[in-house]
């Protein structure tokens, strides 16, 4: 018996990257080529001579997954091998929206027929939990730590779906490993749509966020239920579906309290005010995306 994403990888117990990768491969099947940037997913799955990948897979550098994917797509087309093979770039938030933004912008502007899956665990995890452009407001990371003078990261998350919608991507979806069937459905759709499509998957990281390994899925669900991580689909720049929260709505504290990276909001003086700010962000999302 073999899996397209095999056991024996060095991911932490309860690893979010492993789960998203597994789900993506369940959606894609064996007729795909995966391109990964440097990061947890790459390092934990490919210590030479071992590899967890049951499909063709390539890693080049940190910032060029989208560019390499462009080349894979072009190469397959030139050789007449493109047909049904899906070209999927899959990597972390830092590699996608910080150092890799040049490459993904170029790839999407050129309109290659690829799908890019960003596994967003909201920091540079592989190098030790440093702040990235995807780190949320008030999160403590090793380069934006909470301290006596600081509540942690003071900048909002970079809105990558909006950036790529502006590039004319025909299909963009946010999803969460807390809702795996929704994630798989959206990845399948992204793979089917011709042109550059983007999946932004929320991935709570047990080591980086500071919670028990068994809580990965639970915390992912809470992020959605507070409104902090809205689940939606965009087609040609218009939002075409959202997952409503309705009666499941939770206050942001329920989500933040479970993570060490937000602990300072509950222990430091002035933390209450910060929690209110975060609740405002969640409420704004609920209004903006119609999640009520």
């Amino acid at each position, binding site marked *: 018996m073999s899996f397209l994403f095999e056991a024996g990888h060095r991911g932490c117990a309860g690893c979010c990257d492993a789960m998203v990768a597994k789900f993506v491969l369940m959606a894609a099947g*064996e*007729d*795909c*080529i995966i*391109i990964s940037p440097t990061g947890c997913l*790459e*390092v934990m799955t*490919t*210590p*030479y*001579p*071992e*590899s967890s*990948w*049951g*499909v*063709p*897979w*390539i*890693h*080049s*550098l940190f*910032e*060029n997954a989208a*560019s*390499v*994917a*462009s*080349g*894979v*797509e*072009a*190469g*397959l*087309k*030139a*050789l*007449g*091998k493109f047909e049904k*093979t899906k070209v999927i770039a899959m990597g972390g938030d830092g590699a996608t929206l910080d150092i890799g933004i*040049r*490459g993904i*912008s*170029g790839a999407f*502007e*050129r309109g290659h027929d690829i799908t890019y899956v960003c596994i967003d665990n909201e920091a540079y995890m592989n190098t030790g939990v440093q702040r990235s452009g995807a780190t949320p407001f008030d999160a403590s990371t090793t380069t934006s730590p909470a301290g006596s003078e600081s509540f942690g990261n003071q900048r909002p998350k970079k809105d990558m779906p909006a950036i790529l919608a502006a590039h004319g991507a025909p299909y963009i979806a946010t999803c969460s490993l807390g809702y795996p069937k929704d994630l798989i459905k959206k990845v399948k759709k992204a793979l089917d749509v011709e042109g550059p499509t983007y999946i932004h998957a929320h991935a709570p990281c047990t080591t980086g966020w500071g919670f028990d390994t068994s809580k990965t899925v639970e915390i992912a669900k809470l992020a959605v239920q507070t409104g902090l991580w809205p689940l939606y689909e965009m087609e040609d720049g218009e939002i075409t579906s959202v997952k409503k929260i309705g009666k499941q709505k939770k206050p942001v504290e329920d989500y933040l309290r479970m993570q060490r990276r937000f602990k300072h909001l509950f222990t430091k003086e002035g933390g209450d005010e910060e929690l209110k700010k975060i609740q405002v962000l969640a409420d704004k999302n609920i209004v903006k995306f119609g999640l009520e």
Partner: protein
Amino acid sequence: MAVIRDLNKDKMDVVEGSYAVAHSVKVCKPNVISAYPITPQTHIVEDLSQFMADGEIPNCEYINVESEFSALSALVGSSAVGARCYSATTSQGLELMHEILFNVSGMRLPIVMTIANRAVSAPINIWNDQQDSISQRDTGWIQLYAEDLQEASDMTAQAFKIAEDKDVMLPAMACMDGFILSHVYEPMVLLEQDLVDEYLPTYAPEYTLDTKNPLTFGAFADPEIYTEFRYLQQKAMDNALPKIEEAANDFHKVFGRYYGGLVDEYETEDAEIILMAMGSVVGTIKDTIDGLRAKGVKVGLLKVRSFRPFPVEAIHNAIKNAKVVVAIDKNISLGLNEGALFTETKASLYNTNIDMPVIGRMIGHGGRDIPVSTIEKIVDEAANVMKSGISVESQYADLKEELL
């Protein structure tokens, strides 16, 4: 073997160097071309896109990338699926690619790039010198330097053949001096399609990204195994030495043209003074030598065609009977005050019995014109070394003192 340049007048056209190279790329049947424009490479990529627009390159995709970094990154993906890949760049673009040059070589992807050699910023300067490619000499790319348009054009086919050889599988830079060769018109023979089909086999790598036979490319190598990867790359460079000669000889058999393999010698048999140089300056030096020989000066030229792999044995064989050798460099290693051809030649002689003085002269940086008088001056200095020994080991030969 002496250089053979008998060109069939019926087959000759007056074309721009860039056009000739673009044409060569076309007939080598590439599968993926990625291009980001940078002076003075622009005409090459423009001509290629016109060929694409006119349907002259079948089975090929042309990617208008958003930076040189992506130009080469895209080719990593293309090469890994088994496509024959080409790009061109220079100067700042090549420097931007620095990270990925190592990556391509380490992954053993035989991508070919034309480098239209240009000076490096700062200060910004678009004219020719060889600082750009020389500064990348440690990255594991084969580097060949062309003397004129005909060679630059023909070198493209040779570069693919050498790079894609199963015992090499390293990427290759085909270097031609920017503007001097890229933007100049000369009568020449464009690379012939039917002969290229005979000369260059189809690219068929052993390992590709293939859903029918999935493999992982680009795993990480821990301390227990990394050294052996590097060793194998060095071994591939060693294998490239005879392959470069072979490719040149085979090219001669098929096309009837020859410019030397690893090196090329001009009037070196009885030379007391030997000048060593790479690229278009070779033409000027040959003219200078003709003039000096007529006056009885025993001077010769060793054209170094392959800089990586560095052809130690070929160089030693060529210079061993000279009384003084001058290495001419269009580049400088700052902090050492030497050009790379000089440093590496000198170092390679150290533990041998070859004992003559070797000096280095840097000229032509930032596109400074190299008249015959500059070369004559260098030959004079070499003659003085023969008489009285080395006074200055390495310096600029065309420095303008009045600007300092």
